[in-house]
């Protein structure tokens, strides 16, 4: 009966309850959407990074990771690719040569990382082949000799166009400087302008020929996996097979990226706690008014035999119901909005340059984990309970003899 009374009580003053419910609803929509945008953007940043260049696992010569010296190679890389691809949970494997060099055009010279790739096998590991607009060339097609993929950012810096010639200089196997003329076969663009500025792609066979490294060697083997939960297990499996090589997960390779998720989780929690605290104070105020308006009634309840625990519980239930109704509506509306914008995306084109310089896409697909709703539901109920304490204490402290004779 207490539950029924508390539920009915919140609808006694419909306007006042509606104001509180709308405030909670709007507060939560604002909070959840902001969290969705934060989480969606960071999630996308990680996905983009994994798909465009990092991959879940990378394998290097142990000393290569120290300062990227070309001499630290993985021998017999084709065989390694084959063996690793047979490990359960591995989706695809691809080896690359990675050499630091300079890209020179008549206009400028820029320090770059030259990625020597096997175009077809690379497709299974990175999405670079999808990042070339139709009007800006092809993925290593239509250019017979020394094709190179450069980013639009680099093209702008070096004033290069499709089919322009660019001279790449780098060290060959024995340390002697060498170089070669390459022709731009495609211009790509990822969401990470920092990556774009420093990475170009050539065929592995071309780079091997110019550097005098055997084609069956690599500086890096990228591994994609099917289930992210198996990351550590697969890493351990690879390490077991290749104890002399350095096997690192994306979290070790890009700790800043890994930190983004943890940081966002903490930010989300702080953000929601601030919003719920603000709403909590609003609810406290409303419930104090409720108690003051019902002094006589509460006094009567205590006079006829309703003990303090029951009075406290009744006020607490009313507060929790108000919070839960507002919270429920807020979460439902947010879920609908997140579902819609999660599919069509939210464009932040006005700040795209800034976002891309940090590797974030200008089109964000907001999303939140299902577990977030559970956490939020718990926080909403907790807010209701905490917000009810002060008004409920006020109520139980009433003297029934005086309360029944007041005008309230």
């Amino acid at each position, binding site marked *: *009966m207490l539950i029924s*009374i508390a539920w*009915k*009580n919140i*609808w*006694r003053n419909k306007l006042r309850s509606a104001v509180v419910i709308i405030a909670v609803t709007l507060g939560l929509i604002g909070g959840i959407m902001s969290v969705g945008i934060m989480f969606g953007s960071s999630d996308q940043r990680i996905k983009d990074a994994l798909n465009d260049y990092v991959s879940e696992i990378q394998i290097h010569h142990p000393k290569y990771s120290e300062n990227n010296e070309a001499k630290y190679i993985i021998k017999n890389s084709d065989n390694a690719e084959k063996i690793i691809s047979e490990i359960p949970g591995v989706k695809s494997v691809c080896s690359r040569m990675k050499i630091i060099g300079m890209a020179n055009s008549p206009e400028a010279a820029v320090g770059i990382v030259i990625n020597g790739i096997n175009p077809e096998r690379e497709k299974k590991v990175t999405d670079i082949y999808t990042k070339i607009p139709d009007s800006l060339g092809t993925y290593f097609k239509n250019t017979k000799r020394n094709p190179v993929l450069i980013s639009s950012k680099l093209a702008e810096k070096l004033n290069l166009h499709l089919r322009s010639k660019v001279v790449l200089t780098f060290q060959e196997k024995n340390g002697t400087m060498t170089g070669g003329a390459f022709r731009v076969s495609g211009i790509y663009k990822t969401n990470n302008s920092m990556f774009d500025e420093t990475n170009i792609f050539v065929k592995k066979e071309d780079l091997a020929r110019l550097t005098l490294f055997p084609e069956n060697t690599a500086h890096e083997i990228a591994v994609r996996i099917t289930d992210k939960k198996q990351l550590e297990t697969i890493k351990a499996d690879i390490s077991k097979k290749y104890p002399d090589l350095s096997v690192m997960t994306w979290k070790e390779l890009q700790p800043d990226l890994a930190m983004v998720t943890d940081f966002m989780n903490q930010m989300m929690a702080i953000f929601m706690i601030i919003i719920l605290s603000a709403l909590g104070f609003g609810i406290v105020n409303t419930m104090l008014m409720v108690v003051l308006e019902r002094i*006589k*009634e509460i*006094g*009567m*309840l*205590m*006079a*006829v*035999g*309703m*003990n*303090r*625990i*029951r009075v406290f519980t009744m006020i607490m239930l009313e507060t929790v119901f108000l919070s839960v109704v507002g919270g429920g509506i807020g979460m439902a509306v947010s879920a609908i909005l997140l579902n819609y914008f999660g599919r069509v995306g939210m464009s932040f084109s006005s700040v795209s340059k800034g976002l891309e310089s940090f590797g974030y896409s200008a089109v964000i697909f907001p999303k939140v984990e299902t577990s977030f709703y559970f956490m939020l539901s718990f926080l909403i109920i907790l807010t209701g309970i905490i917000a009810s304490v002060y008004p409920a204490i006020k109520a139980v402290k009433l*003297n*029934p*003899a005086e309360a*029944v*004779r007041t005008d309230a």
Partner: protein
Amino acid sequence: MNIIETKNLHKTYKESEIEVHAVRGVDLSFEQGEFTAIVGPSGSGKTTLLNMIGGLDKPTEGEIIIDGINISTLKGSKLIDFRLRKIGFVFQAYNLIPVLTAKENVEFIMNLQKRPKKERIKRAEDLLKAVGLGDRMNARPSKLSGGQQQRVAVARALASKPMFILADEPTANLDSESTRNLLEIMETLNKEENITFIFSTHDTRVVNKARRIITIDDGKVLSDEKK
């Protein structure tokens, strides 16, 4: 046999630094089945006396023995529980729960007593019929007249099967018709079911019906007459 006894009851409280002696040494006893009116002018101490008998207020001095228990020694939940089981209250302003129907208001007390649902429903219906509201059981207080609300309050007070009912100026807000109705109902319940009623009032219509009239003034019993 006495069901209520007050011994040398005093109540003093402070109002803006001035000590007010609301009740000064009242010795009274009440028997089962009484229909008693406590009368006196405003500020005479009758409501304070009633509040103390009802366990809503503590005496500064003296004892209140109800059913052999000195209730001035009871505290917190024990006192609330005592009120719930032994005393029925009828207030001047009806004080029903506005969100509940007449039947639910009567049931509410029994719910606090944790009585089984079937018993609650049956007793609530029987009591509402007894006070002439068999056809208004599902109406909320806002849909009932003052007289009808007060009759629901009487049914509610009876629902807990109390030893006695304390009614603080129950007719103060009622018109003549409603007052007559209410008094008839209470008189019938008193005569037929031996229910003890103690009123505080200055309504002559109530006084005329009472079989015992205790007059109080300045916190003291001036007279105690039985008809």
